[in-house]
């Protein structure tokens, strides 16, 4: 087969399809979104009947994947790093239940926070759950490791975590495919109580997981994904995890590093390999994207061994993703210097699109709140978070998916009345509904503005689980029908919308205002498609 030019995300998707995947479960989140999108668009995946609809959130995705694994088939669940926080309950317990059909969890980290709220390192979750973690260093490995992850999962009856970072997820390179494996047949676990985590059973299952640890490490020694590359100069030894390996070799002619290097791609990292490296060198440099997870392990609390350099001793900055020059600096290698950037350059932060419905919603909200003291709008995660910036400067919080409604409840409880929540439609069904139920049960004096652009906008316009359901969900959760208002955020409706919001701000109970107008981007795409279809039918 000819090589395909694939994003790291796409290589994972193709790798999963070729490994005999039966279903992918995910909620969109940069930089993981393209995995599921690739499977949704893949003709092969369609022919093979691989399910790929979006889930309401990462927890529901994770649980559905566990269900598919229980039924004996191979399931992939994908999320961005903070999505793993949402799925954590199911994820950690899946390590205790173990897997039946191959169960692979993909978490895409975002060091340097290109599109995120933090730069947490998913490898910690793998260690926490005590399951194998794979970390590819390039697109080909992303493809190969995905296939290997399913095999590993079925061999040991355990979920396997694959960790990538933005740089690999969104970088393209040639990938060589191998033959396509069949999907599994439906087959339930031999022990039908394996997934029943009653304490008495969970204790047994946990002991089994503990018993597998040595085998996980043994596999990481023989899989080929951890390699000790021997060299003659023993002044320094380098441990390079995932992508960091590329940044290391980039600094050397023909990629020949003069020092021994332990290239890490699978965790737990085998003690044998680490000891072999440690014993032969004077000092060690640890290169890893994300937190200093391995560096800290190696150093130990008392740091009374050989000198270990990395993020903890300042050889590498604590925050942000690695790059070739950071590695060069840490090793004292001289680097090229480009032209100085002139001072005339100004920042160009992202902004809401021209004609975006959110702009009109926030202009109305800003005006309705003019007679109140500032600082009472709790918001959420989506395009509308950009309303924190100039010129709108409308919102005062963005913490995690769904937090707008629940933070408004707490602030109202503390006496900040009225408190306002602004949340997108997809975020609302992701994690806002339970908060709204709390608000109803509390009779909290809050106004919830659901910014319904009928899509998951920020990640590129994926189908929103909320589509066509918001009004009935709010009614069902017990919001009084008189206080569910639907407005159309358009400039020409401004006065009317301000009045609706003002009235609800004066109501001492839960109000929901649904500001509904389609995302300008998805609308544009829809119109283009329609025009093309019309042209085709005319021909």
């Amino acid at each position: 087969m000819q090589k395909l030019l694939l994003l790291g995300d796409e290589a994972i998707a193709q790798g999963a399809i070729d490994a005999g995947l039966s279903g992918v479960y995910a909620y969109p989140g940069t930089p993981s979104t393209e995995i599921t999108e690739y499977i949704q668009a893949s003709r092969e995946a369609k022919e093979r009947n691989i399910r790929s609809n979006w889930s309401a959130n990462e927890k529901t995705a994770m649980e559905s994947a566990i269900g598919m694994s229980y039924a004996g088939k191979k399931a992939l669940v994908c999320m961005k790093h903070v999505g793993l926080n949402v799925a954590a309950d199911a994820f950690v317990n899946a390590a205790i239940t173990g897997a039946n059909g191959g169960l692979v969890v993909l978490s895409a980290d975002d060091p340097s926070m290109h599109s995120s709220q933090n730069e947490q390192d998913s490898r910690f979750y793998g260690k926490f759950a005590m399951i194998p973690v794979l970390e590819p260093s390039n697109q080909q490995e992303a493809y190969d490791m995905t296939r290997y992850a399913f095999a590993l999962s079925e061999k040991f009856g355990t979920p396997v975590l694959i960790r990538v970072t933005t740089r690999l997820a969104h970088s393209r390179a040639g990938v060589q495919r191998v033959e396509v494996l069949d999907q599994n047949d439906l087959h339930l676990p031999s022990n039908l109580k394996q997934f029943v985590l009653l304490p008495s059973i969970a204790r047994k299952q946990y002991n089994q997981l503990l018993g597998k640890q040595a085998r996980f490490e043994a596999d990481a020694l023989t899989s080929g994904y951890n390699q000790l590359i021997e060299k003659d100069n023993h002044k320094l030894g380098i441990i390079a995890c995932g992508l960091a390996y590329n940044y290391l070799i980039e600094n050397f002619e023909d990629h020949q590093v003069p020092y021994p290097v332990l290239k890490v791609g699978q965790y737990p990292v085998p003690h044998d390999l680490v000891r072999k490296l440690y014993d032969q060198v004077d000092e060690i440099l640890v290169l890893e994207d994300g937190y200093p997870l391995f560096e800290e392990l190696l150093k130990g609390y008392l740091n009374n061994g050989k000198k270990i350099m990395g993020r903890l001793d300042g050889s590498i900055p604590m925050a942000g993703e690695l790059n070739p020059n950071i590695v060069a600096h840490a090793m004292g290698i001289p680097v090229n210097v480009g032209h100085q950037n002139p001072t005339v350059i100004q920042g160009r932060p992202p902004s809401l699109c021209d004609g975006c419905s959110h702009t009109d919603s926030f202009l109305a909200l800003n005006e309705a709140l003019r007679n109140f003291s500032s600082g009472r709008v709790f918001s959420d995660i989506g395009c509308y978070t950009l309303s924190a910036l100039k010129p709108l400067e409308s919102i005062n919080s963005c913490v995690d998916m769904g937090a707008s409604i629940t933070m408004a409840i707490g602030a109202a409880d503390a006496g900040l009345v009225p408190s306002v929540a602004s949340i997108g439609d997809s975020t609302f069904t992701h994690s806002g509904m339970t908060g709204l139920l709390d608000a109803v049960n509390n009779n909290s004096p809050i106004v919830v503005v659901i910014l319904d652009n009928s899509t998951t906008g920020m990640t590129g316009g994926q189908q929103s689980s909320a589509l066509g359901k918001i009004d009935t969900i709010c009614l069902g959760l017990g919001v009084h029908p008189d206080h569910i208002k639907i407005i159309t955020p358009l400039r020409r409706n401004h006065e009317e919308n301000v009045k609706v919001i003002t009235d609800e701000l004066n109501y001492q109970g839960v109000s929901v205002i649904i500001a509904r107008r389609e995302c300008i981007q998805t609308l544009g795409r829809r119109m283009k498609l329609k025009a093309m279809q019309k042209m085709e039918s005319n021909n």
Partner: protein
Amino acid sequence: MKKDIILAGVGGQGILTIATVIGTAALMEGLQLKQAEVHGMSQRGGDVQSHLRLSSKPIASDLIPEGKADLVISVEPMESLRYIIMMNKETGWLITSMNPFINMSNYPSLEELLAEIWNLPRNVTIDAEKVAKELGTVKAANIVVLGAASPYLEIKFDNLEKAIESIFAEKGNDMIQLNLKALRAGRELADKRG
């Protein structure tokens, strides 16, 4: 052969299309490539960049090391300057359109920007929008810039043409012809500069 290229612009200006055309042509020539893109939040009217690395030998890093880019190809003048820190000071070329994309209140004066660009030892500035408009649509400005950059790519011009034919195939023959014209017009501008 090795070419490290930074592509720069504002979200929606079509720099990924430039990358795809170069990448497709590079594959025709049997080159290896890596291309790091920017997706997600930074796309929304913000600055975007892509690192495109071509080589006859294996490529390690997805990111071009600072100070080592052979080319900065930009569809916007201020954005072109944002990446000159990435450019090789001794050998690097800057190829940019001189058409500002103004979606901010503190956009600097075009004269100042052009002065900075012209101050660089190796630069090509073109009025890509004017050329694209004459061809029928300002949207082809990105391909005009690619045409102007083509003499510096070490990739055969007819392979770039073939790449355009394959990439725009599903959009119909009109789009193919428009973009081929845009590519050639950009090339002419660069050649005229001499």
